[in-house]
């Protein structure tokens, strides 16, 4: 097979299926015409070589044809791909973290950190892979997002959030909630537990009673820091680090509380949350107590998840300015 046929064979590999033969026939006719004009008689290898060199590599030639684009997701779809990939990733990670939290709370098998961590890490390429497959199909089908620039309204621009400003509402809510819990803990220190109506039977919560000093300490530290933040009005490096430290203390306390409750529930014959609900039908004092303890446990798991999220956000804000250190070039003043 001569060089021209080898070239065409290679071009065929990169061409879109549509019009493939037609395009190849045209290139062949062009190459023969050119060779005929340049060389009298039979063209040799060198003549073909120099002509093909002028045509360019098969890949490049094929890529110039409509439909021969050498990419999976084009520039029009790419911003949407990024957006969807972000949403999917957030949903997949969020759902798994939630599942871990629920599993912990329902007292399912002991928590195997590395196994769970591995599963979460593995889910990232899998979910991104599916998004890519969907977008490649959309691209192949020629789906184009409708972006109407004329409809774009500058007023729809999102407000830039000043990340260093302290959101006073959030902080004051934290101070109020913390103070109320502290006051309740102090006022009813001997009556921490579950009261069942009707009847007013009281069941103490031994796990919570045991942890009261630590809870009070972490609440006090958190309230003090919030008051300082409201007073200062701005986050600083120091206050962010302090907030992370206080949150880590809270997380430790909450983890101990969850573990304590789970252990207590297991020791009192409560095999998971659903069994606890079922047992309520028995209306025995134990069933009410178990239900109460499970409710406490749920509240602490929720608090744990919320604190974790807040801490991760704080850590990101803490690390980001260190990673992205950008300064303007010197400005000359006339």
């Amino acid at each position: 097979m001569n060089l021209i046929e080898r070239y065409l064979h290679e071009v065929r590999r990169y061409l879109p299926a549509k019009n493939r033969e037609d395009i190849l026939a045209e290139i062949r006719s062009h190459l023969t015409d050119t060779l005929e004009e340049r060389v009298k008689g039979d063209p040799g290898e060198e003549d073909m070589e120099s002509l093909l060199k002028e045509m360019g590599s098969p890949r490049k030639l094929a890529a110039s044809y409509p439909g021969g684009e050498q990419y999976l997701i084009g520039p029009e779809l790419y911003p949407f791909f990024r957006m969807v990939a972000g949403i999917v990733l957030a949903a997949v990670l969020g759902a798994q973290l939630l599942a871990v939290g629920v599993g912990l709370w329902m007292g399912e098998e002991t928590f195997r950190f590395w196994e769970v961590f591995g599963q979460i890490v593995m889910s990232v390429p899998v979910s991104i892979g599916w998004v890519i497959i969907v977008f490649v199909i959309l691209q192949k089908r020629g789906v184009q997002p409708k972006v109407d620039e004329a409809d774009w309204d500058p007023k729809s621009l999102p407000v830039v959030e000043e990340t260093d400003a302290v959101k006073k509402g959030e902080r004051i809510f934290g101070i109020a909630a913390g103070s109320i819990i502290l006051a309740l803990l102090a006022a009813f220190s001997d009556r921490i537990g579950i009261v069942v109506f009707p009847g007013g039977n009281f069941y103490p919560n031994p796990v919570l009673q045991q942890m009261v000093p630590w809870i009070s300490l972490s609440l006090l530290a958190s309230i003090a820091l919030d008051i300082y933040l409201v007073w200062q009005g701005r986050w600083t490096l120091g206050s962010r680090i302090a907030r992370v430290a206080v949150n880590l203390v809270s997380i430790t306390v909450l983890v101990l509380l969850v573990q304590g409750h789970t252990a207590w529930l297991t020791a009192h014959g409560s095999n998971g949350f659903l069994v606890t609900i079922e047992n309520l039908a028995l209306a025995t004092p134990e069933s009410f107590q178990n239900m109460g303890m499970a409710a406490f446990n749920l509240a602490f798991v929720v608090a744990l998840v919320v604190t974790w999220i807040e801490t991760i956000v704080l850590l990101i804000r803490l690390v980001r300015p260190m990673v992205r250190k950008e300064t303007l070039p010197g400005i000359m003043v006339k």
Partner: protein
Amino acid sequence: MNTQNESEQVLNLSQELRRGILPLAVLSLLKEKKYGYALIGDLAAAGIEIDQGTLYPMLRRLELQALLESSWILEGARPRRYYVISEQGSRILEILSQEWKNLNQLMEKLLGNVPN
């Protein structure tokens, strides 16, 4: 930051300039039907060099945009794909020619002011 040398920069920028006018040049030469190889000759005669690997895909694009029409014609033993400007192509060519003249005037004025 500048890794290109000057002659490379000139080459790239002038290629970019030329790329913009190629469809206009091709449309103007296809008032009567021609096949690709002959068109390259006509363009060269007019002083416009075009890569063979650029012309054929461009003809396809213009056809896809309904500015050109094409048909295979058997000449002797060899089939050739002939292109000719469509009605829509003619209308657009007229508008673009005017556009080109205006641009040319503007640039003349602009570049005339640049001291040599």
